[in-house]
């Protein structure tokens, strides 16, 4: 079984985001990026399937800032092949563009499953998993929390709200949007990544034509103010705890 795992980086939300001068994008100069956590889960699930049933795992990513290191990290975790999709990409690649470039690259490969993250925090024009499936013209299941391979068939668990789960039986090829792997994604020490950078080869494949369908046009980025901003409780931890205690008392809770 061949499993392909498209991965990408997203801004690390622990760091403060800034808006650039145009007002239509993030200020990307100092931005700290990290692997999309759901892609990390997709990679983990693929590696678990490999360990169970001997699949070959290929991690693939669109050429972008620091992506080589991300791909080598995937190799250090256990991906058998790593591929960078090259092309004339701008600083921001929309989900449609990314999905189309990935589809162009993947369609010439042998694959049974494509596992990628259910979403990323920057998918303004939709989530890549289902877009990719449709550009590849293969079926999809997203919001997946369980995958098992039984001979030629793949059994997939999909989550709904309220803790309801549906089980589907699928025939590859197939794209899955992974919500959570069976276990917390593995960690790999930097030393191992450095080591693999010397031995693994990073292949390059052209992304081809990524001109896509109509899209809405961004006018403005702004920080949300939410429904009604919270009243902030100041002071030392002790004073803050006191105030919370009083609020609870007022509510008749304590």
């Amino acid at each position, binding site marked *: 079984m061949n499993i392909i795992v498209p991965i990408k980086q997203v801004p690390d*939300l*622990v760091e*403060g*985001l800034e808006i650039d001068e145009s007002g239509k994008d993030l200020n990307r100069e100092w931005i700290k990026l990290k692997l999309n956590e759901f892609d990390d889960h997709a990679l983990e699930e693929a590696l678990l399937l490999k360990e169970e049933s001997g699949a070959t795992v290929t991690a693939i990513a669109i050429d972008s800032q620091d992506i080589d290191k991300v791909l080598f990290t995937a190799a250090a975790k256990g991906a058998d092949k790593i591929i960078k999709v090259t092309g004339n990409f701008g600083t921001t690649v929309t989900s*449609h563009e990314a999905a189309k470039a990935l589809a162009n690259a993947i369609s010439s490969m042998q694959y049974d499953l494509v596992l990628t993250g*259910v*979403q990323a925090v920057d*998918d*303004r*024009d*939709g*989530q890549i*998993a*289902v*877009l990719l*499936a*449709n550009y590849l013209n293969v079926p*999809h299941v*997203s919001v997946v929390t369980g995958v098992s391979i039984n001979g030629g068939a793949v059994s997939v*668990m*999909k*989550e*709904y*709200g*309220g*803790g*309801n789960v*549906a*089980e*589907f*039986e*699928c025939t590859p090829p*197939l794209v899955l949007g992974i919500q*959570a792997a069976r*276990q917390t994604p593995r960690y790999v020490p930097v030393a191992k990544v450095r080591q693999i950078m010397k031995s693994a080869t990073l292949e390059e494949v052209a992304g081809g034509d990524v001109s896509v*369908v*109509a*899209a*809405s*046009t*961004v*006018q*403005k*980025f702004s*920080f*949300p103010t939410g*429904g*009604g*901003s*919270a009243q*902030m*409780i100041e002071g030392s*931890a002790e004073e*803050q*705890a*006191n*105030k*919370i205690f009083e609020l609870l008392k007022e*509510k008749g*809770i304590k």
Partner: protein
Amino acid sequence: MSKQIFVITEHLRGKIDDVTYEMLGKGKELAAASGGELVAVLLGHNQKELANEFGAASKVIYADHEKLADFNPWMYAKIVSEIVAQQKPRVVLTAYSSMGIEVAPAVSVSQGISLTAYVSDLSIQDLKVSVVSQIYGGKMNIEAVDENESMIACVLPGSFPADAGKATGSPAVEDFAVSGLDESKIQFKKLIAPDKSDVDITQSEILVSVGRGIQSNDNLPMVEELATKLGGAVSCSRPIVDSKWMPKTRQVGKSGLKVKPKCYLALGISGAPEHIEGMKEADLVIAVNTDPKAPIFDYAHYGVVGDLFDIIPALSAKL
């Protein structure tokens, strides 16, 4: 150009999700502004009577087939694509939900229609649609305009009042002829109901809810202690469940439970839209977070910028 507004309704075994009413309410407003009609799209089997729940719409397009009795990603996407292709409505509203996340991108690609996701607001004037997306985990709003012939908006649940879309009546029902459903690729097997053996957090008046800020399951006992002292229960965000530190039954949010306690203490939870969806109706929300820009503060009534490892013991000591 069409002026129609479509709402792709959602139900799980006949139980209609609130987000459907939210979309119908918003859709009605959009239809009034565009001068077109509001059309609800319903897929299912022997469920025509559900159309009566969609009195806000002037018409319901109903696709009935035994294979549509339960949601099937590719079949639902195929049928919705066909319906959209026939009518090319100006705006199609789908939910950012487990079902919508499969349908919206599929229709976008198959029909070549623009798609805007994480939509928290939209309006229409002269058939030009202004749309706001909430991205980066709720930390940024992006305004965009859509001047295409047709667009899909994938709407964040909880963005619009559901009451505005709740009108019973008997809208005209138009049957859509279903054909060509091939089950060989994706077959629905069964629906597994949630576990009921644990505490029911939806019944708890006080929830002490923890997120990734708790760092390790070794730190959970102090949270349990606080909850016990308050006479409440512990709930959590999704990553805590994914890490297997707490059972799924304790998860609040989109893929967990919707809760409306008297008091919701959010400790080390950033406030991603998927979490907010599950707790925004709590009477009193108090959030503790080290990040002053955490989106949870936009939804909390009271906020503490601080370390939960200081606040929890200090509060416990008072009780």
